């Protein structure tokens, strides 16, 4: 299994080197069935993704399967307690997401939402939105929403 994965990665890298214009995500999507396939959810209106940290590759793969013509909003909520590891590793993924969300807006008028919380130091992660989703932010196509934890349930004693 490991060798299959390794050879696949090698194949992807080879493709990337040989044809810089070919989007990497498209190659991945073409080769593998994404684990989360939303193509049959044709009446979707609101789609929300809570992502682990800044790694959003599974989210992108799932978004590429969306075919709903009634979709109104896509919400991205990175679950970040602190900026983990070198951010360069995830830059490509976020650029892909940025492009994909713009495509959703231009082709289907789907609005995007970026939910941010606080890191372990209590600092808001709102300022990361322009660097993670630069084009979307520049064009004012993303709504920034602060994450508020669910309120404690009211109980009667």
């Amino acid at each position, binding site marked *: 299994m490991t060798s299959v994965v390794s050879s696949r990665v090698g194949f992807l890298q080879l493709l990337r080197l040989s044809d810089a214009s070919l989007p990497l995500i498209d190659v991945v999507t073409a080769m593998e069935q994404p684990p989360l*396939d939303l193509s049959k*959810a044709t009446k979707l209106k*609101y789609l*929300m*993704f*809570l992502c*682990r940290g800044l790694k959003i590759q599974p989210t992108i793969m799932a978004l590429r399967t969306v075919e709903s013509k009634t979709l109104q909003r896509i919400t991205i909520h990175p679950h970040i307690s602190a900026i983990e590891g070198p951010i360069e590793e995830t830059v490509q993924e976020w650029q892909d997401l940025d492009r994909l969300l713009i495509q959703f807006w231009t082709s289907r008028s789907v609005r995007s939402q970026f939910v941010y919380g606080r890191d372990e130091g209590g600092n808001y992660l709102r300022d990361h939105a322009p660097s993670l989703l630069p084009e979307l932010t520049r064009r004012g196509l993303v709504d920034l929403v602060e994450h508020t934890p669910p309120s404690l349930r009211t109980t009667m004693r």
Partner: protein
Amino acid sequence: MSRSLPPEILDLTIDHLHDEPTALKACCLVSKSWVPRTRKHLFALVEFRTLQSPVERWKKNFPDHSNSPAHHTHTLCIRNLPTLIAADTEVGAWIRSFRNVVQLHLERITWEGPRSPLVPFHGFSPTIRSLSLTRTSFEVFDLICSFPLLEDLTLVLLAADDADRWTVPLASPKLTGSLELITPGMVPPIARRLLELPDGLHFVKIRVTCLNEEDARSATDLVSRCSSTLEILDIGCFLPGGFPSASAIV
């Protein structure tokens, strides 16, 4: 000429205090005629959660099940059920007195041995539309199927169990509301049972947490089954790589 307030005025006055428990308790002391309407709000939400025999206290205060304020309850929360009802032979009559419950929350209900403490709960309130099960044994699908009007289902951190022991019932609720599946790594067996329900799945909203590819594929199956009704999808997408702790997700 009567000097008492017309009952509809009295009811209206007390209804304005529906979210003021302290004021409602004071109203109970004003007059016996004020008690019935006050109880309607005071007992709308009942929670049994302490380990100091709250069920016994309830039964001591309201020995006549048919006349207890339980019929006012629309939201019932129970935690640590096996501890609460241990050695209680009349739990069936007690729980059936909560016959108008619409929302049921059960938490931390696991057991050893063949007899599930959930059996007396089967169909106890035919009006239940929302069921939430947290940190509960996996053997809850008979309970789910016993509520014909059930719309919303929340399953959080179910304990793993033998998935082959279940006999699929002949009928199941329509499940037309929301599904919340916060069961890290346990989506496949739960989805398999949900997909077996004879009357299908018609959820409008699904919230599911996927910790691995198997979870994601099962989520895909659920989404596909609800494709004609699903409008809102909330995915906790935590694959691949290391996963956060379950508590962080919940």
